[in-house]
């Protein structure tokens, strides 16, 4: 069964460092998403991406965040200068159709900022 894969599974970084989280969505999907989940809290929307541009973003997704689809398969989330409060699990998801809402999630990348 096709799946969304994410790397790394866990990254530890120092405050102020740049981090890139990588995702390989399901190959025929057109819509891509990043969500994050702070430990013990709900899953929060960060950004959606379609046709090589951001379609929606939340208040969390400020100027220190960026997303990119550098080639035909990868979808990346970059955090330019990490803060302690960026420590969370980051989930990538993809879907065939936007409005259907059936998202396929990866297993997540745990980011720990020290």
């Amino acid at each position, binding site marked *: 069964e096709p799946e*969304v894969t994410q790397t790394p599974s866990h990254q530890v970084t120092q405050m102020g460092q740049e981090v890139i989280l990588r995702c390989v969505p399901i190959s025929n999907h057109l819509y891509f*998403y990043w*969500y994050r989940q702070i430990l013990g809290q*709900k*899953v*929060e*929307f960060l950004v*959606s991406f379609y046709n090589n541009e951001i379609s*929606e973003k*939340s208040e969390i997704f400020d100027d220190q965040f960026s997303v990119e689809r550098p080639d035909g398969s990868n979808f990346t989330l970059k955090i330019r200068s990490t803060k302690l409060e960026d420590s969370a*699990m980051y*989930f990538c*998801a993809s879907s065939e159709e936007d*409005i*259907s*809402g*059936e*998202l*396929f*999630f*990866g*297993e*997540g990348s*745990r980011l720990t900022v020290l």
Partner: protein
Amino acid sequence: LAKTTQPISMDSYEGQEVNITCSHNNIATNDYITWYQQFPSQGPRFIIQGYKTKVTNEVASLFIPADRKSSTLSLPRVSLSDTAVYYCLVGIMDSSYKLIFGSGTRLLVRP
């Protein structure tokens, strides 16, 4: 401010039916309602999706009233392995359109 709310937690026993409700007052007109299950340290997994009335699949049923401002996930005869957090996911229109998870309901199934 658009909110999607669920009970924080529910307790049940093996073999019982569990119903979890999500309220979503700002749901976008043409959007589906989707429910996900999440185990610790894993990504959410799709359970069921519907637009209106009732939908049933091999693991759950989803009840959606006519105004679509809420939905109820029904898990028949839960087992210990159904212990997880359950989220509704809906498209919300406030300043713009976003796919938003509910606050999540932590279900504990006891023997």
